[in-house]
């Protein structure tokens, strides 16, 4: 099942076992802004959708019948009430959803805009702020203000739970950098060494760090890849230093982009979807020629993976959450564009075909295996 979150609602695409034929199920929440739609891999049944509508406050919708019915969260992610009243932060929208560790049924994490981290222990019905993160004064300094964020506001994203240990977490922030916790969010430490920032800014100030997407390799949880505002990186723990592996990308393409996807079984293989980060940062495909790029050796070299994609005049943007992989063999890849097209590859990017078009602006693409 491919789960599509868009600016105007959500869709579920059900594929046959060959991943050749796809049935569209939607729209769900037509007119709602859906930032992320995720199927719980632990039960293959619970769906959570992070949604907002016009000026209504944000909520999380929950379904346990594959979208036939939905219920709003009884207590969505919300910052703690500030004793000073007027100065407290307000969640504008939930941006990112991550299911908890396999051993913690019903646990979920949510990342918000402005940057906040929340946890649910009842499958998304109620959410509590993780005060060790949200009230951490140093982290708050690094978060900056809404002035410093993306056009839709600064975001907390890339929430990662180490599959070996439920208390080991990573997160990233569009302003504020990458951080690690080894006590389920009570305390945090930045993982920033080796990362570059925009020329002229101080790289020792985490407020200037802009990771776009961070992924942990399921087959080697000590390895993470990152698509950053300033390049593609890899880190192998216990090292605390990122290595920029994007410099071996073709110069005319560069290593700027939003999404990062890792192979479920091979930690040397990862995919990116470069975008134009020159001059005013169009964020469209370099030269109007969309292409994914794959490394199969940890970033030493990259190969273009674009067969089947338009060869020119396709000025696409693929957002950071809008590219995903399934767990099949060979791995299937999926990406959605802000112009409403959904593409897939059944052979790890060697050939692409379009699954859907004319959808609203696609914010996120995920893959789930119904139970």
């Amino acid at each position: 099942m491919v789960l599509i979150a868009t600016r105007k609602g959500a869709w579920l695409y059900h594929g046959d076992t060959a991943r050749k034929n796809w049935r569209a199920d939607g729209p769900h929440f037509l007119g709602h802004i859906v930032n992320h739609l995720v199927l719980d891999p632990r039960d293959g049944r619970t769906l959570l959708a992070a949604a907002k509508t016009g000026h209504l406050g944000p909520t999380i919708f929950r379904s346990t019948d594959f979208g036939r019915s939905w219920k709003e969260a009884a207590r969505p992610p919300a910052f703690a009430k500030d004793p000073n009243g007027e100065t407290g932060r307000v969640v504008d929208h939930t941006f990112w959803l991550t299911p908890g560790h396999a051993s913690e049924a019903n646990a979920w994490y949510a990342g918000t805009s402005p940057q906040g981290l929340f946890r649910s222990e009842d499958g998304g019905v109620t959410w509590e702020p993780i005060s060790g993160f949200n009230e951490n004064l140093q982290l708050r300094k690094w978060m900056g203000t809404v002035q410093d964020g993306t056009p839709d506001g600064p975001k907390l994203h890339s929430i990662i739970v180490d599959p070996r240990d439920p208390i080991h977490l990573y997160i990233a922030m569009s302003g504020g950098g990458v951080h690690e916790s080894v006590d389920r969010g009570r305390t945090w430490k930045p993982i920033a060494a080796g990362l570059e920032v925009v020329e002229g800014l101080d790289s020792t100030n985490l407020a200037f760090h802009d990771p776009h997407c961070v992924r942990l390799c399921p087959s080697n949880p000590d390895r993470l890849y990152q698509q950053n505002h300033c390049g593609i990186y890899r880190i192998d723990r216990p090292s605390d230093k990122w290595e920029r592996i994007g410099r071996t990308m073709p110069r005319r393409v560069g290593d700027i982009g939003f999404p990062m996807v890792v192979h479920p079984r091979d930690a040397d293989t990862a995919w990116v979807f470069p975008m134009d980060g020159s001059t005013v940062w169009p964020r469209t495909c370099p030269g109007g020629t969309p292409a994914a790029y794959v490394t199969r050796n940890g970033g030493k070299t990259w190969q273009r993976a674009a067969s089947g994609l338009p060869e020119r005049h396709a000025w696409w943007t693929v957002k950071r959450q809008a590219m995903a992989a399934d767990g099949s063999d060979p791995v299937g890849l999926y990406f959605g564009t802000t112009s409403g097209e959904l593409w897939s590859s059944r052979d790890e990017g060697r050939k692409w075909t379009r699954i859907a078009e004319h959808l609203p602006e696609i914010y996120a693409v995920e893959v789930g295996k119904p139970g």
Partner: protein
Amino acid sequence: MNVLIPAPLRSYTGRRQVEAIGSSLAAVLVDLDRQYPGIRFRMINEQGRMRPHVRFFVNGVQTLDLSQPLCSADEVLIVQALSGG
């Protein structure tokens, strides 16, 4: 008292008109949330402030004051403007 629910929030209540109790607008919204968990947060943020473009009318008169006293004979109308694009 009667509370009239705007269309975008009827997924919580299932109907346009519901009953709620409270001696102030703030208390009525808390009672609504007791009956329909999560509904108040869509109108009032976590710092206790009205969200932009939600409007409350008491007996046809708009109020911006959540502490406005109410009695059981009053009728509250909630209106929600929906931005988009």
